[in-house]
């Protein structure tokens, strides 16, 4: 059953996309590929995508490292750490283009900084610099989350050891800390590279026509030129680097190239990891980044409650009235889809995770990989593949809610799968055997022991499916129709129509809703009986 679902919603669409890209009149052909590559604009898009990804990877990793190092080495007061956490959490749970919208408010033609403060007229916010800055601010939290445990693990004793051997702090950093973090840095770079490569919303708003990238080009090819084949080829061009990065990342993490420091990480180091001067600089740099994020979100909030940002700053609630009247359909549709997808995605994730971790059948690994594919691929590819696969008979689903739900379930349930596997690895098989030895059969054991223990994974998976159902756009923008509209798509339309107020109000609404649901789920997770730490394993990762 799971196999059929995976085949239908993972393998089949990709196959259909390949077919579209490389079959002409039923025969394999490279002609579509060559004709797409012949256009300079497309070649530029490919090059731009790679450059942007590399830059976001390098700068985002650096900022993430800065944050992680500051958080683990500077003995910050708890309240400051909290500030860092909030500043890094916001981009993770927002719709992907929130930062971009706020960027327009800040640096656009009538932006707060460019126009109001500096008095520059006719600035052009669109292009590589702003796209890069927005993506860094959006995605560096991924690097922060990846690097923080690495730095925490190599802290304490190893560095103390080096100190005790007479090294200076700087020398310890250079000769011990940094080399040990290199695999972690590589991992973070690859994660950010992939995220930037896949990012659709930021370039759509900020890149402008002079800086085309692959996801937006593919989108325009399909929605502007109605050229499915061209879109498929462009997706394929995007798929190649994405697949390489994905494999490289798995190689680094999987092959033990990754730092695994065994044993206890030791008590909080009693030595200060950095000198007071360096500490001040680090904290100031972090605070600057954190404050600019908070500034952007504050700006978004402000723009949602003034009549017309940049022109008339009288307070009003009319944008909220608009989104709850004209925008009502989008809100209701999105919520319906989110609430249908949520339990399905949660359940699917846990089931696959359980089978992969505890099942004894051939092809377990294949099942795990198949379940991860849609998650690892850029959303644009998944969206285009679904569009191609389900547009025509035998399986015509486009236009309905089902295809959107399916897209979310198969794209975002892997978090639940991952969490389930991690939890089950922590839970000794002996616990299930104990249940058997006490007379319980397999079914009773699953219901009374295994299921309650993987409940945190279920809720975590559920939460992620919900967050993404509210915020995702890259895949589903290809799948919406007149009957089913999504909030994120409406925001994008508002942006292109330059009705910025409603766009800001929608964004604020989504962020508030997502935060409410996320904290409700976190509270629930803390309440669940079970070993401490189960909930943290299930922590809501992006």
């Amino acid at each position, binding site marked *: 059953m799971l196999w059929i679902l995976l085949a239908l919603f993972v393998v089949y669409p990709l196959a259909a996309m390949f077919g579209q890209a490389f079959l002409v009149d039923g025969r394999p052909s490279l002609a579509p590929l060559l004709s797409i590559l012949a256009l300079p604009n497309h070649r530029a898009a490919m090059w731009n995508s790679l450059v942007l990804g590399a830059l976001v990877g390098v700068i985002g990793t650096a900022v993430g490292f800065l944050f992680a190092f500051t958080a683990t080495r500077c003995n910050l007061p708890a309240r400051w750490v909290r500030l860092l956490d909030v500043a890094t959490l916001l981009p993770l749970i927002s719709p992907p283009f929130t930062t971009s919208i706020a960027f327009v408010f800040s640096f656009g033609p009538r932006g707060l900084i460019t126009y109001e403060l500096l008095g520059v007229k006719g600035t052009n916010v669109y292009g590589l610099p702003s796209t890069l800055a927005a993506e860094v601010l959006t995605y560096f939290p991924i690097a922060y989350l990846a690097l923080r445990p690495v730095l925490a693990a190599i802290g304490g004793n190893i560095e103390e050891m080096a100190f005790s051997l007479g090294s200076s702090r700087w020398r310890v950093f250079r000769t011990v800390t940094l080399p040990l973090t290199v695999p972690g840095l590589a991992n973070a770079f690859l994660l950010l590279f992939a995220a930037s490569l896949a990012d659709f919303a930021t370039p759509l708003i900020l890149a402008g026509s002079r800086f085309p990238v692959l996801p937006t080009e593919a989108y325009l090819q399909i929605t502007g030129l109605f050229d499915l084949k061209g879109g498929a080829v462009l997706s394929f061009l995007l798929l190649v680097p994405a697949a390489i990065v994905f494999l490289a990342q798995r190689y680094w993490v999987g092959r033990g190239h990754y730092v695994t420091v065994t044993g206890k990480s030791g008590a909080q180091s009693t030595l200060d990891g950095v000198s007071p001067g360096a500490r001040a600089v680090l904290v100031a740099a972090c605070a600057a980044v954190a404050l600019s994020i908070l500034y952007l979100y504050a700006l978004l909030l402000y723009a949602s409650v003034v009549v017309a940002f940049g022109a008339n700053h009288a307070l009003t609630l009319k944008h909220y009235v608009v989104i709850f009247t004209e925008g009502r359909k989008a809100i209701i549709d999105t919520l319906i889809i989110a609430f249908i997808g949520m339990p399905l995605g949660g359940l699917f994730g846990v089931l696959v995770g359980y089978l992969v971790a505890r099942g004894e059948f051939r092809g377990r690994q294949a099942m795990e990989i198949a379940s991860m594919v849609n998650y690892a691929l850029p959303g644009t590819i998944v969206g285009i593949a679904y569009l191609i696969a389900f547009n025509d008979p035998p399986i015509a689903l486009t236009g309905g809610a089902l295809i959107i739900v399916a897209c979310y379930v198969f794209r975002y349930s892997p978090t639940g799968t991952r969490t389930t596997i991690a939890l089950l690895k922590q839970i000794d098989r002996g*616990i299930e055997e104990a*249940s058997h030895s*006490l007379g319980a059969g397999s079914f009773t054991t699953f219901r009374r022991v295994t299921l309650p223990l993987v409940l945190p994974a279920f809720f975590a998976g559920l939460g992620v499916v919900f967050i993404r159902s509210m915020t995702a756009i890259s895949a589903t923008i290809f799948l919406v129709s007149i009957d089913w509209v999504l909030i994120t798509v409406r925001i994008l339309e508002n942006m292109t129509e330059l009705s910025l107020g409603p766009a800001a109000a929608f964004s604020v609404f989504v962020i508030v809703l997502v935060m409410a649901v996320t904290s409700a789920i976190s509270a629930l997770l803390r309440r669940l009986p079970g070993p401490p730490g189960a909930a943290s394993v299930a922590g809501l990762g992006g």
Partner: protein
Amino acid sequence: MAANPVAIRLEGISARFDHRVKGAVAAVDNVSLDVAPGELLTLLGPSGCGKTTTLRMIAGFQKPSAGRIQIGDQDVTEVMSNDRNIGFVFQNYALFPHLSVYENVAYGLRVRKLDDAAMRGAVGDVLALVGLKGYEGQMPHQLSGGEQQRVALARAIVIRPRVLLFDEPLSNLDAKLRVQMRGEIQRLQREVGITTVYVTHDQEEAMAISDRIAVMNKGVIAQLGSAEDLYQRPASAFVAKFIGRANLLRATVLARDGDRVTLDIAGRRHQAAATGAASSLGKTIQAVVRPEALAIDAAGAGASLPGTVVTRTYLGEKVEYLIAAGDETLQVVQLGPAEARRFPSGTSVGIRLPATGIHLIEEPEA
């Protein structure tokens, strides 16, 4: 009908695993064993010798690749573990982390569909038995290691299993608690009288609690017997060295008259009462002499073996010596050192062999 003389019978059971490098490996190789009703039998052996695997086959967590398993009158080889009516205590306790102490203990009773009143009674009784009254509402992670151990024990015995199985239940406890808990396990086992198979790699623990001990090595039972049997009459050098400490001296049997033997040890004649190796006249064998049976004399005294003290370790109630004698290094323990003479390291000494308590082993030197 007479009471069944066996509670557990293993008939030639084996467990083969496919090892990635070594190919098919027998973790347990054709093991046969009878456990008497009410007996506490220990499987003792070094890590990796197949103890856990044997126990898991008795529990039904794993199917033997050959052989039969009988519990009571019933052949259970093909019976699932949930129908075997056994109690298993895991090395890491395997408590259900999401259930309270009460629910952990009640789990097996709920599966058996006991009514609430009977269940409360049974759980209360067993918690009193393990000294955990008042802990009903606690969660497992709120308990200390020793308390978790007791819950695991209570959970296993409350269902009144036909047999109790322990897999290194004390290895996660600190040394003091280990000694205390093993006393309690022994007391409980006697009180409830359930046939028990206990796995450990700690020979002292095994000797302290067992009626009989099966010493395992490389998937087979090397020797089965009481603690005294194993200590005084080890069947092999492996058992001699694994149970307590032993000096293995190469010797030739010059004469034999009942249990009186005349041995040639390092060119010297020695007469003693000995056990083992009955038909060994004229052969070279190994003589097992425990360290506390040897005594140290000043050099040149009587018929003792000459040697040199390598190290002397003072341990309060005893002193341990390592003494080089010829090409062997002998362990000697002096009890009650207050009265004994001191022999600092480097001293030339004589080692006196005992007149009784020597055990002979017929096998090539290990």
